[in-house]
């Protein structure tokens, strides 16, 4: 397993945002995490990458207990995290944004190569010199993804990457994720059901901080508990 959690819990003033979650993510898988609003998805990934400290439980990455590592050290082990709320460096150029992401793992010319490759992958190669803040919202989302790719991580966590993308860009995103499958492990937090069903190999459904169901897209679609909790029965 590349990533595992055991008994992972987080309470906010008595509210169980994440409760006793045992989660396993094998290397190379594209795994989607879905669930209704307030299900604890963002809290859960916050616990994974160290933005939030757990109340109890542990997180394991590549066979190592990383529960007590600060966020930046977890990132350096090969986890990349793209923000749900767009969080690019607005006053820096697009290229500089991606180069900052790439520079952790490499030096010199390799930084520019990795940066240009990542920008080409998301289709922003022609906007390198622009200030990131001047990009449209959808393009800023793509820039976030490029920053994740440029880190060449072993695990890429994408928090609602298609929110605010146009249909055509969503198509491009699904192609991108499919192309990456096998090369890196991807954990996708997503609201958009068609994206999840087409891009993910496995799906975990969170509800009220607990795992409600796990399985292939087909299984999840057929699951009655999921239907009533989330997908709607109508």
């Amino acid at each position, binding site marked *: 397993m590349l990533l595992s959690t055991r008994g992972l819990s987080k309470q906010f003033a008595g509210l169980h945002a994440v409760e006793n979650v045992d989660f396993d993510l094998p290397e190379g898988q594209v795994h989607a995490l879905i669930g209704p609003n307030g299900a604890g998805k963002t809290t859960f990934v916050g616990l994974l*990458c160290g933005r939030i400290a757990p109340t109890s439980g542990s997180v394991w990455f590549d066979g190592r207990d990383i529960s007590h590592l600060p*966020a*930046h*050290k977890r*990132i350096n082990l090969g986890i990349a*995290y793209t*923000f749900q709320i767009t*969080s*690019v460096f607005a006053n820096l150029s697009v290229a*500089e944004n991606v180069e900052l992401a790439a520079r952790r793992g490499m030096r010199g010319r390799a930084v520019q190569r990795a940066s240009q490759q990542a920008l080409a992958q998301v289709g922003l190669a022609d906007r390198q010199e622009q200030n990131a803040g001047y990009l449209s919202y959808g393009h800023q989302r793509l820039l976030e993804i490029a920053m994740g790719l440029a880190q060449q991580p072993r695990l890429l966590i994408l928090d609602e990457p298609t929110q605010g993308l146009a249909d055509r860009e969503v198509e491009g995103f699904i192609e991108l994720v499919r192309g990456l499958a096998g090369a890196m492990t991807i954990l996708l937090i997503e609201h958009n059901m068609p994206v999840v069903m087409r891009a993910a190999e496995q799906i975990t459904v969170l509800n009220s901080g607990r795992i409600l169901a796990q399985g292939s897209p087909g299984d999840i679609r057929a699951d009655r508990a999921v239907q009533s909790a989330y997908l709607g029965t109508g």
Partner: protein
Amino acid sequence: MSEGLKSALVHGGLLVVLFGLQFVLPAYHHGNLARIMVLASYAIGFNVLFGYTGLLSLGHALFFAAGMYGMGLSVEHLGAAPAPALLAGVVAGLLVSGVIGVLALRTSGVAFMIVTLMFAQAGYLTVLYAGAYTRGDEGFVVQQAQRVMMGVDLSDPSHRYFAGFTLFAICLIATLWLVRSPFGKVLIAIRENEDRATMLGYDVFARKLAAVMISGTISAMAGAVYGLLFGYVGASFASVQYSIFPLLWVLLGGAGTIVGPFIGTLFMFYLIDLSSQVTTAYMLIAGIVLVALTLFAPQGLAGMLRKRIWRGLP
């Protein structure tokens, strides 16, 4: 023209002009400019932290004074020669900024401003309390005989100008190199979005501490040189006023630009100088001009250049 060449022309051009001015300026302005270059070096140090890392310290007088007293006390009590005394000032600044950085960086935002202000006040009071060594408010004079560095008499105006110029050139070139280096770009990233920088894998605390120490050490170097060139070490340089000055200079000149600190210091110095020739209420004139600048050029003078003329101004 490439960005690198343009930057070399602008900053190199400024240094060439400053170097040349010493041969043509009348004595009064010659003396002023020597002082301005040393104070601008202090502002450059402040700008590393404020303009490039996004941390507002209200206690930089502590670092300026650490350098000044590190130099002055080793001359006064240990009979040190200028060169080792300057080194003592720089080391004092490095140590003080390291300790203050570790403590103050546990906070952020307004709390960071208050904590740095508080430490600087504690430093000021320490200078007064240790009056037996520092002569408190009254201060002490570094005698002309104690200011001869490697055969060069630093109390001589032309030597003084050249020493101030050398310090300024070193600070300008070093920070220009710094902000274009990968390390400097991470500082800018922290200023722009600290959370994002952490989630790209950067140890933000370690880098902010390094920024405090670089900024504090440059400020201390300026303080040490100031004491040596102008021959006086006193508690007023540790007071809150000297924490506010670099903030004003940097804001006026343009935070987060390399030439901004110099422009701001020059502007402010002559604003007060000229208006005090016109009226005794010169602070009123200075105040009105400052308000006008804040209204019409909130990014400072160099910030305005960056916005209107050259977006790539480092």
